[in-house]
Protein backbone atom coordinates (compact mmCIF):
# COMPACT_ATOMS: atom_id res chain seq x y z
CA UNK A 1 0.00 0.00 0.00
CA UNK A 2 3.05 2.23 -0.03
CA UNK A 3 2.72 4.63 -2.90
CA UNK A 4 6.06 5.57 -4.42
CA UNK A 5 4.85 9.13 -4.86
CA UNK A 6 3.71 9.56 -1.26
CA UNK A 7 5.02 12.53 0.66
CA UNK A 8 7.38 11.93 3.55
CA UNK A 9 4.56 12.84 5.91
CA UNK A 10 2.25 10.30 4.31
CA UNK A 11 4.92 7.63 4.64
CA UNK A 12 5.34 8.35 8.33
CA UNK A 13 1.56 8.19 8.73
CA UNK A 14 1.41 4.90 6.85
CA UNK A 15 4.23 3.53 9.00
CA UNK A 16 2.45 4.62 12.15
CA UNK A 17 -0.68 2.93 10.86
CA UNK A 18 1.15 -0.36 10.41
CA UNK A 19 2.36 -0.33 6.81
CA UNK A 20 5.47 -2.55 7.10
CA UNK A 21 7.13 -1.08 4.01
CA UNK A 22 6.60 2.63 4.54
CA UNK A 23 9.59 3.22 6.80
CA UNK A 24 11.97 1.41 4.48
CA UNK A 25 10.73 3.58 1.63
CA UNK A 26 11.41 6.68 3.72
CA UNK A 27 14.92 5.46 4.52
CA UNK A 28 15.63 4.77 0.84
CA UNK A 29 14.66 8.33 -0.03
CA UNK A 30 17.05 9.99 2.35
CA UNK A 31 19.79 7.45 2.95
CA UNK A 32 22.50 9.06 0.82
CA UNK A 33 22.28 12.49 2.42
CA UNK A 34 22.08 10.99 5.88
CA UNK A 35 24.97 8.68 5.09
CA UNK A 36 27.05 11.67 3.96
CA UNK A 37 26.31 13.52 7.18
CA UNK A 38 27.11 10.49 9.35
CA UNK A 39 30.25 9.57 7.43
CA UNK A 40 31.62 13.10 7.47
CA UNK A 41 30.77 13.62 11.10
CA UNK A 42 32.28 10.32 12.27
CA UNK A 43 34.81 9.71 9.44
CA UNK A 44 34.71 5.97 9.99
CA UNK A 45 32.44 3.97 7.66
CA UNK A 46 31.83 1.24 10.23
CA UNK A 47 30.94 3.74 12.90
CA UNK A 48 28.83 5.73 10.48
CA UNK A 49 26.90 2.57 9.56
CA UNK A 50 26.43 1.72 13.23
CA UNK A 51 25.25 5.24 14.03
CA UNK A 52 22.84 5.30 11.09
CA UNK A 53 21.39 1.93 12.00
CA UNK A 54 20.94 3.05 15.58
CA UNK A 55 19.37 6.30 14.41
CA UNK A 56 16.95 4.63 11.98
CA UNK A 57 15.80 2.12 14.59
CA UNK A 58 15.31 4.98 17.01
CA UNK A 59 13.31 6.88 14.39
CA UNK A 60 11.30 3.75 13.57
CA UNK A 61 10.25 3.47 17.21
CA UNK A 62 9.64 7.19 17.68
CA UNK A 63 7.68 7.73 14.48
CA UNK A 64 4.39 7.52 16.37
CA UNK A 65 5.35 10.66 18.28
CA UNK A 66 6.47 12.57 15.19
CA UNK A 67 4.58 15.82 14.85
CA UNK A 68 3.64 17.05 11.43
CA UNK A 69 4.72 20.62 12.13
CA UNK A 70 8.33 19.50 11.77
CA UNK A 71 9.85 18.48 8.44
CA UNK A 72 10.45 14.74 8.26
CA UNK A 73 13.92 15.30 6.82
CA UNK A 74 14.86 17.71 9.61
CA UNK A 75 13.60 15.23 12.16
CA UNK A 76 15.59 12.37 10.61
CA UNK A 77 18.73 14.49 10.34
CA UNK A 78 18.43 15.51 13.94
CA UNK A 79 18.21 11.90 15.08
CA UNK A 80 21.19 10.92 12.92
CA UNK A 81 23.35 13.85 14.02
CA UNK A 82 22.54 13.18 17.67
CA UNK A 83 23.44 9.51 17.24
CA UNK A 84 26.77 10.56 15.72
CA UNK A 85 27.54 13.12 18.42
CA UNK A 86 26.61 10.64 21.15
CA UNK A 87 29.00 8.17 19.59
CA UNK A 88 31.79 10.75 19.51
CA UNK A 89 31.21 11.62 23.12
CA UNK A 90 31.28 7.96 24.12
CA UNK A 91 34.42 7.03 22.26
CA UNK A 92 37.09 8.57 24.40
CA UNK A 93 39.55 5.98 23.16
CA UNK A 94 39.88 7.77 19.84
CA UNK A 95 39.89 11.46 20.61
CA UNK A 96 40.33 13.97 17.86
CA UNK A 97 43.53 15.98 17.94
CA UNK A 98 42.52 19.52 18.83
CA UNK A 99 44.23 22.31 17.01
CA UNK A 100 46.01 24.89 19.10
CA UNK A 101 44.05 28.03 19.71
CA UNK A 102 45.50 30.49 17.21
CA UNK A 103 48.39 31.37 19.45
CA UNK A 104 51.40 33.14 18.01
CA UNK A 105 53.96 30.79 16.55
CA UNK A 106 51.76 27.72 16.58
CA UNK A 107 52.55 25.67 13.51
CA UNK A 108 50.00 24.83 10.90
CA UNK A 109 49.97 21.07 11.07
CA UNK A 110 50.35 18.20 8.62
CA UNK A 111 51.60 20.15 5.64
CA UNK A 112 53.85 17.26 4.62
CA UNK A 113 51.02 14.78 4.90
CA UNK A 114 48.77 17.00 2.84
CA UNK A 115 51.25 17.44 0.07
CA UNK A 116 50.64 14.03 -1.46
CA UNK A 117 46.93 13.82 -0.81
CA UNK A 118 44.09 14.73 -3.03
CA UNK A 119 42.41 17.95 -2.00
CA UNK A 120 39.25 16.23 -0.94
CA UNK A 121 41.16 13.82 1.26
CA UNK A 122 42.99 16.75 2.78
CA UNK A 123 39.73 18.52 3.47
CA UNK A 124 38.21 15.43 5.02
CA UNK A 125 41.29 14.92 7.09
CA UNK A 126 41.21 18.53 8.23
CA UNK A 127 37.57 18.22 9.18
CA UNK A 128 38.52 15.42 11.53
CA UNK A 129 40.59 17.81 13.56
CA UNK A 130 37.68 20.03 14.47
CA UNK A 131 35.75 19.56 17.69
CA UNK A 132 32.62 17.52 16.96
CA UNK A 133 30.22 20.44 17.46
CA UNK A 134 32.08 22.62 14.97
CA UNK A 135 32.43 19.74 12.54
CA UNK A 136 28.74 18.89 12.53
CA UNK A 137 27.84 22.54 11.85
CA UNK A 138 30.44 22.81 9.07
CA UNK A 139 29.34 19.50 7.51
CA UNK A 140 25.71 20.57 7.41
CA UNK A 141 26.22 24.17 6.24
CA UNK A 142 29.38 24.14 4.10
CA UNK A 143 29.49 20.56 2.83
CA UNK A 144 25.85 19.52 2.56
CA UNK A 145 24.54 22.98 1.81
CA UNK A 146 21.84 23.32 4.45
CA UNK A 147 20.84 26.83 5.42
CA UNK A 148 21.87 28.19 8.78
CA UNK A 149 18.19 28.11 9.82
CA UNK A 150 17.76 24.47 8.82
CA UNK A 151 21.02 23.50 10.50
CA UNK A 152 19.92 25.24 13.68
CA UNK A 153 16.75 23.13 13.69
CA UNK A 154 18.66 19.92 13.03
CA UNK A 155 21.20 20.59 15.76
CA UNK A 156 18.64 22.07 18.14
CA UNK A 157 20.68 25.23 18.71
CA UNK A 158 20.29 28.95 17.94
CA UNK A 159 21.15 30.23 14.46
CA UNK A 160 23.79 32.50 15.99
CA UNK A 161 25.43 29.47 17.55
CA UNK A 162 25.52 27.75 14.16
CA UNK A 163 27.22 30.80 12.63
CA UNK A 164 29.66 31.02 15.50
CA UNK A 165 30.61 27.34 15.26
CA UNK A 166 31.06 27.67 11.52
CA UNK A 167 33.27 30.73 12.00
CA UNK A 168 35.53 28.96 14.49
CA UNK A 169 35.68 25.84 12.36
CA UNK A 170 36.43 27.67 9.11
CA UNK A 171 39.21 29.63 10.78
CA UNK A 172 40.88 26.43 11.90
CA UNK A 173 40.35 24.69 8.59
CA UNK A 174 41.82 27.66 6.71
CA UNK A 175 45.03 27.17 8.66
CA UNK A 176 45.14 23.40 8.35
CA UNK A 177 44.46 23.58 4.62
CA UNK A 178 47.18 26.15 4.11
CA UNK A 179 44.92 28.93 2.90
CA UNK A 180 46.20 31.09 5.69
CA UNK A 181 49.82 31.09 4.72
CA UNK A 182 50.86 33.30 7.58
CA UNK A 183 48.79 32.12 10.50
CA UNK A 184 50.54 34.50 12.85
CA UNK A 185 49.15 37.51 11.06
CA UNK A 186 46.51 39.22 13.09
CA UNK A 187 46.72 36.75 15.92
CA UNK A 188 48.49 39.25 18.08
CA UNK A 189 45.12 40.77 18.82
CA UNK A 190 43.23 37.52 19.20
CA UNK A 191 42.76 38.14 22.89
CA UNK A 192 41.79 41.72 22.45
CA UNK A 193 38.99 42.40 24.88
CA UNK A 194 37.26 44.84 22.57
CA UNK A 195 37.17 42.28 19.79
CA UNK A 196 35.64 39.68 22.06
CA UNK A 197 33.05 42.06 23.41
CA UNK A 198 32.03 42.98 19.91
CA UNK A 199 30.82 39.48 19.25
CA UNK A 200 27.14 39.04 19.69
CA UNK A 201 27.49 35.35 20.36
CA UNK A 202 30.37 34.62 22.62
CA UNK A 203 30.26 30.82 22.39
CA UNK A 204 33.01 29.57 20.17
CA UNK A 205 31.76 26.00 19.73
Amino acid sequence: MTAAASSDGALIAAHAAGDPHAFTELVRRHRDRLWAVALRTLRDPEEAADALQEAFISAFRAAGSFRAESQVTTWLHRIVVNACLDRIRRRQARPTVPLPEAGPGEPAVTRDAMADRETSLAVQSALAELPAEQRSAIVLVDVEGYSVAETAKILGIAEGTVKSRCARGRGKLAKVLGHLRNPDAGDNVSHDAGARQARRHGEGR
Partner: protein
Amino acid sequence: MTGNERRSRTPDGPPWSVDLLADLHAGVLDVDVAAELRPRVERDPEARAVLAALDATTADLAALPPVTMPPEVSARIEAAIQQEVRAAMANVGLQVSAPGPAPRGNVVSLDHARRRRRKQLGWGGGVLAAAAAVFGIVVMTLPGNTTAGTPQAQPGVTPSSSAPGPGDGPLTLKDSDLATVPPGVTGASDLGPLSDKAKLSACLQANGYPATTVPLGARQVTLDGKQGVLLILGDPAMVGRQRLLVVGPNCSAGNPDKLAEKTVGR
Protein backbone atom coordinates in the same frame (compact mmCIF):
# COMPACT_ATOMS: atom_id res chain seq x y z
CA MET B 1 26.88 44.06 29.99
CA THR B 2 24.07 45.35 27.88
CA GLY B 3 23.48 44.97 24.18
CA ASN B 4 24.06 48.71 23.72
CA GLU B 5 27.50 48.46 25.25
CA ARG B 6 28.31 45.57 22.94
CA ARG B 7 27.17 47.41 19.88
CA SER B 8 29.12 50.50 20.81
CA ARG B 9 32.41 48.64 20.58
CA THR B 10 33.79 48.24 17.12
CA PRO B 11 37.16 46.57 17.51
CA ASP B 12 40.21 48.57 16.74
CA GLY B 13 42.52 47.54 13.97
CA PRO B 14 44.24 46.66 11.84
CA PRO B 15 45.36 44.11 12.67
CA TRP B 16 42.32 42.03 13.59
CA SER B 17 42.29 38.48 14.85
CA VAL B 18 41.39 35.59 12.56
CA ASP B 19 38.57 34.79 14.98
CA LEU B 20 37.08 38.25 14.59
CA LEU B 21 37.42 38.20 10.82
CA ALA B 22 35.85 34.72 10.72
CA ASP B 23 32.95 36.09 12.78
CA LEU B 24 32.56 38.94 10.31
CA HIS B 25 32.73 36.45 7.43
CA ALA B 26 30.09 34.16 9.00
CA GLY B 27 27.67 36.93 9.92
CA VAL B 28 28.12 36.52 13.65
CA LEU B 29 28.69 40.20 14.41
CA ASP B 30 25.92 42.67 15.03
CA VAL B 31 24.79 44.33 11.84
CA ASP B 32 25.97 47.80 12.83
CA VAL B 33 29.36 46.58 14.03
CA ALA B 34 29.82 44.61 10.82
CA ALA B 35 28.79 47.59 8.71
CA GLU B 36 31.35 49.79 10.43
CA LEU B 37 34.08 47.19 10.30
CA ARG B 38 33.72 45.95 6.76
CA PRO B 39 35.05 49.02 4.87
CA ARG B 40 38.03 49.22 7.21
CA VAL B 41 38.76 45.54 6.68
CA GLU B 42 38.50 45.99 2.93
CA ARG B 43 41.29 48.55 3.08
CA ASP B 44 43.67 46.20 4.91
CA PRO B 45 45.52 43.68 2.70
CA GLU B 46 46.17 41.24 5.53
CA ALA B 47 42.53 41.20 6.58
CA ARG B 48 41.46 40.76 2.97
CA ALA B 49 43.81 37.80 2.71
CA VAL B 50 42.16 36.22 5.74
CA LEU B 51 38.68 36.68 4.24
CA ALA B 52 39.94 35.21 0.96
CA ALA B 53 41.35 32.23 2.87
CA LEU B 54 37.98 31.70 4.51
CA ASP B 55 36.28 31.86 1.11
CA ALA B 56 38.75 29.32 -0.26
CA THR B 57 38.01 27.08 2.71
CA THR B 58 34.26 27.14 2.20
CA ALA B 59 34.85 26.50 -1.53
CA ASP B 60 36.96 23.43 -0.65
CA LEU B 61 34.22 22.16 1.64
CA ALA B 62 31.50 22.69 -0.95
CA ALA B 63 33.61 20.88 -3.56
CA LEU B 64 33.80 17.64 -1.57
CA PRO B 65 32.41 14.93 -3.86
CA PRO B 66 28.95 13.61 -3.01
CA VAL B 67 28.88 10.24 -1.33
CA THR B 68 26.31 7.51 -1.67
CA MET B 69 25.53 4.86 0.86
CA PRO B 70 27.35 1.62 -0.02
CA PRO B 71 24.96 -1.21 -0.96
CA GLU B 72 26.16 -3.38 1.92
CA VAL B 73 25.37 -0.66 4.44
CA SER B 74 21.98 -0.10 2.88
CA ALA B 75 21.23 -3.84 2.95
CA ARG B 76 22.33 -4.08 6.54
CA ILE B 77 20.14 -1.18 7.63
CA GLU B 78 17.10 -2.47 5.78
CA ALA B 79 17.62 -5.89 7.34
CA ALA B 80 17.78 -4.24 10.76
CA ILE B 81 14.52 -2.42 10.09
CA GLN B 82 12.82 -5.64 8.99
CA GLN B 83 14.11 -7.34 12.10
CA GLU B 84 12.65 -4.49 14.13
CA VAL B 85 9.26 -5.04 12.50
CA ARG B 86 9.41 -8.76 13.26
CA ALA B 87 10.69 -8.21 16.79
CA ALA B 88 7.83 -5.83 17.54
CA MET B 89 5.42 -8.38 16.20
CA ALA B 90 6.97 -11.18 18.22
CA ASN B 91 6.93 -9.15 21.43
CA VAL B 92 3.30 -8.34 21.03
CA GLY B 93 2.51 -11.86 19.95
CA LEU B 94 3.94 -13.31 23.10
CA GLN B 95 1.79 -10.93 25.08
CA VAL B 96 -1.27 -11.86 23.13
CA SER B 97 -0.84 -15.58 23.42
CA ALA B 98 0.36 -16.21 26.93
CA PRO B 99 -0.55 -17.12 29.51
CA GLY B 100 -4.26 -17.35 28.78
CA PRO B 101 -5.84 -19.89 26.49
CA ALA B 102 -5.17 -19.44 22.81
CA PRO B 103 -8.11 -18.35 20.76
CA ARG B 104 -10.11 -21.22 19.41
CA GLY B 105 -11.81 -21.65 16.12
CA ASN B 106 -12.24 -18.89 13.63
CA VAL B 107 -13.73 -16.22 15.82
CA VAL B 108 -11.16 -14.19 17.65
CA SER B 109 -11.98 -12.62 20.97
CA LEU B 110 -10.63 -9.12 21.12
CA ASP B 111 -11.01 -8.60 24.84
CA HIS B 112 -8.31 -11.07 25.69
CA ALA B 113 -5.81 -9.72 23.20
CA ARG B 114 -6.54 -6.15 24.13
CA ARG B 115 -6.20 -6.67 27.84
CA ARG B 116 -2.74 -8.05 27.29
CA ARG B 117 -1.80 -5.34 24.83
CA ARG B 118 -2.90 -2.61 27.18
CA LYS B 119 -1.02 -4.21 30.02
CA GLN B 120 2.27 -4.66 28.23
CA LEU B 121 2.34 -2.05 25.51
CA GLY B 122 3.13 0.84 27.81
CA TRP B 123 6.26 1.58 25.79
CA GLY B 124 4.52 1.44 22.47
CA GLY B 125 3.32 4.35 20.45
CA GLY B 126 1.32 4.19 17.30
CA VAL B 127 3.95 2.11 15.55
CA LEU B 128 3.91 -0.67 18.06
CA ALA B 129 0.18 -0.60 18.40
CA ALA B 130 0.11 -1.02 14.66
CA ALA B 131 2.70 -3.77 14.90
CA ALA B 132 0.43 -5.45 17.42
CA ALA B 133 -2.35 -5.23 14.92
CA VAL B 134 -0.17 -6.74 12.23
CA PHE B 135 0.91 -9.46 14.58
CA GLY B 136 -2.67 -10.26 15.28
CA ILE B 137 -2.85 -11.38 11.67
CA VAL B 138 0.12 -13.66 12.14
CA VAL B 139 -1.41 -15.25 15.20
CA MET B 140 -4.65 -15.90 13.47
CA THR B 141 -3.03 -17.59 10.53
CA LEU B 142 -0.39 -19.63 12.29
CA PRO B 143 -0.96 -23.30 11.65
CA GLY B 144 -2.35 -24.99 14.70
CA ASN B 145 -3.02 -21.81 16.54
CA THR B 146 -6.00 -23.35 18.20
CA THR B 147 -3.65 -25.22 20.48
CA ALA B 148 -1.77 -23.59 23.27
CA GLY B 149 1.71 -22.51 22.37
CA THR B 150 3.98 -19.62 21.74
CA PRO B 151 3.44 -18.11 18.37
CA GLN B 152 6.57 -17.07 16.56
CA ALA B 153 6.80 -14.25 14.12
CA GLN B 154 7.52 -15.61 10.69
CA PRO B 155 10.51 -14.03 9.02
CA GLY B 156 9.51 -12.21 5.93
CA VAL B 157 5.82 -12.50 6.62
CA THR B 158 3.81 -9.63 5.26
CA PRO B 159 0.23 -8.65 5.74
CA SER B 160 -0.56 -9.45 2.14
CA SER B 161 0.62 -13.03 2.53
CA SER B 162 -0.84 -13.60 5.95
CA ALA B 163 -3.93 -11.47 6.01
CA PRO B 164 -7.02 -13.31 7.12
CA GLY B 165 -9.31 -14.36 4.38
CA PRO B 166 -12.94 -15.26 4.34
CA GLY B 167 -12.08 -18.71 5.68
CA ASP B 168 -11.03 -17.16 8.96
CA GLY B 169 -14.54 -16.00 9.58
CA PRO B 170 -15.67 -12.56 10.58
CA LEU B 171 -14.14 -10.78 13.53
CA THR B 172 -16.72 -10.41 16.28
CA LEU B 173 -16.81 -6.86 17.56
CA LYS B 174 -18.85 -4.70 19.84
CA ASP B 175 -19.20 -0.99 19.17
CA SER B 176 -16.97 -0.34 22.18
CA ASP B 177 -14.21 -2.37 20.51
CA LEU B 178 -13.79 0.43 17.99
CA ALA B 179 -12.08 2.69 20.49
CA THR B 180 -8.79 1.52 19.01
CA VAL B 181 -7.75 -0.34 15.87
CA PRO B 182 -8.72 -3.97 16.48
CA PRO B 183 -5.80 -6.37 16.12
CA GLY B 184 -5.58 -8.21 12.86
CA VAL B 185 -7.10 -5.53 10.69
CA THR B 186 -4.25 -3.20 9.74
CA GLY B 187 -2.68 -4.55 6.57
CA ALA B 188 -5.45 -7.11 6.00
CA SER B 189 -7.40 -7.04 2.78
CA ASP B 190 -10.43 -9.11 3.70
CA LEU B 191 -12.94 -6.95 1.85
CA GLY B 192 -15.67 -9.58 1.45
CA PRO B 193 -18.60 -8.02 -0.43
CA LEU B 194 -16.43 -4.97 -1.25
CA SER B 195 -13.71 -7.00 -2.99
CA ASP B 196 -14.71 -5.50 -6.30
CA LYS B 197 -12.71 -2.29 -6.69
CA ALA B 198 -15.56 -0.34 -8.25
CA LYS B 199 -17.90 -1.39 -5.47
CA LEU B 200 -15.37 -0.35 -2.83
CA SER B 201 -14.87 3.04 -4.48
CA ALA B 202 -18.62 3.60 -4.73
CA CYS B 203 -19.09 2.64 -1.10
CA LEU B 204 -16.29 4.95 0.05
CA GLN B 205 -17.77 7.79 -1.97
CA ALA B 206 -21.21 7.15 -0.53
CA ASN B 207 -19.62 7.60 2.89
CA GLY B 208 -17.93 10.86 1.94
CA TYR B 209 -14.43 9.60 1.17
CA PRO B 210 -12.58 10.16 -2.10
CA ALA B 211 -13.03 7.24 -4.50
CA THR B 212 -9.24 6.84 -4.66
CA THR B 213 -8.90 6.20 -0.92
CA VAL B 214 -6.82 3.10 -0.25
CA PRO B 215 -7.73 1.44 3.05
CA LEU B 216 -4.85 0.65 5.38
CA GLY B 217 -6.69 -2.54 6.26
CA ALA B 218 -10.00 -4.28 5.78
CA ARG B 219 -11.69 -7.12 7.65
CA GLN B 220 -15.10 -8.71 7.55
CA VAL B 221 -16.69 -8.30 10.93
CA THR B 222 -19.85 -8.91 12.89
CA LEU B 223 -20.53 -5.68 14.74
CA ASP B 224 -23.05 -6.07 17.53
CA GLY B 225 -24.55 -8.95 15.57
CA LYS B 226 -24.65 -7.18 12.21
CA GLN B 227 -22.50 -8.34 9.32
CA GLY B 228 -20.22 -5.78 7.76
CA VAL B 229 -16.76 -4.80 6.67
CA LEU B 230 -14.40 -2.79 8.83
CA LEU B 231 -12.16 -0.41 6.88
CA ILE B 232 -9.17 1.44 8.36
CA LEU B 233 -8.64 4.72 6.56
CA GLY B 234 -5.46 6.65 7.21
CA ASP B 235 -5.24 10.36 7.68
CA PRO B 236 -1.97 11.55 6.12
CA ALA B 237 -2.51 15.00 7.56
CA MET B 238 -2.43 13.69 11.11
CA VAL B 239 0.15 11.07 11.93
CA GLY B 240 -1.22 8.26 14.04
CA ARG B 241 -4.89 9.10 13.44
CA GLN B 242 -7.17 6.80 11.52
CA ARG B 243 -10.87 6.47 10.77
CA LEU B 244 -12.54 3.15 11.43
CA LEU B 245 -15.48 2.78 9.08
CA VAL B 246 -17.81 -0.21 9.35
CA VAL B 247 -20.26 -0.64 6.50
CA GLY B 248 -22.94 -3.22 5.86
CA PRO B 249 -23.02 -5.56 2.85
CA ASN B 250 -25.33 -3.25 0.92
CA CYS B 251 -22.93 -0.30 0.88
CA SER B 252 -22.90 1.05 -2.67
CA ALA B 253 -23.32 4.24 -4.66
CA GLY B 254 -25.92 6.34 -2.89
CA ASN B 255 -26.26 3.88 0.00
CA PRO B 256 -23.65 4.38 2.74
CA ASP B 257 -25.05 1.46 4.81
CA LYS B 258 -22.88 2.75 7.62
CA LEU B 259 -22.84 0.66 10.78
CA ALA B 260 -20.24 2.71 12.63
CA GLU B 261 -17.55 5.32 12.10
CA LYS B 262 -14.93 6.27 14.68
CA THR B 263 -11.73 8.24 14.82
CA VAL B 264 -8.88 6.50 16.57
CA GLY B 265 -5.40 7.62 17.46
CA ARG B 266 -4.76 11.20 18.28
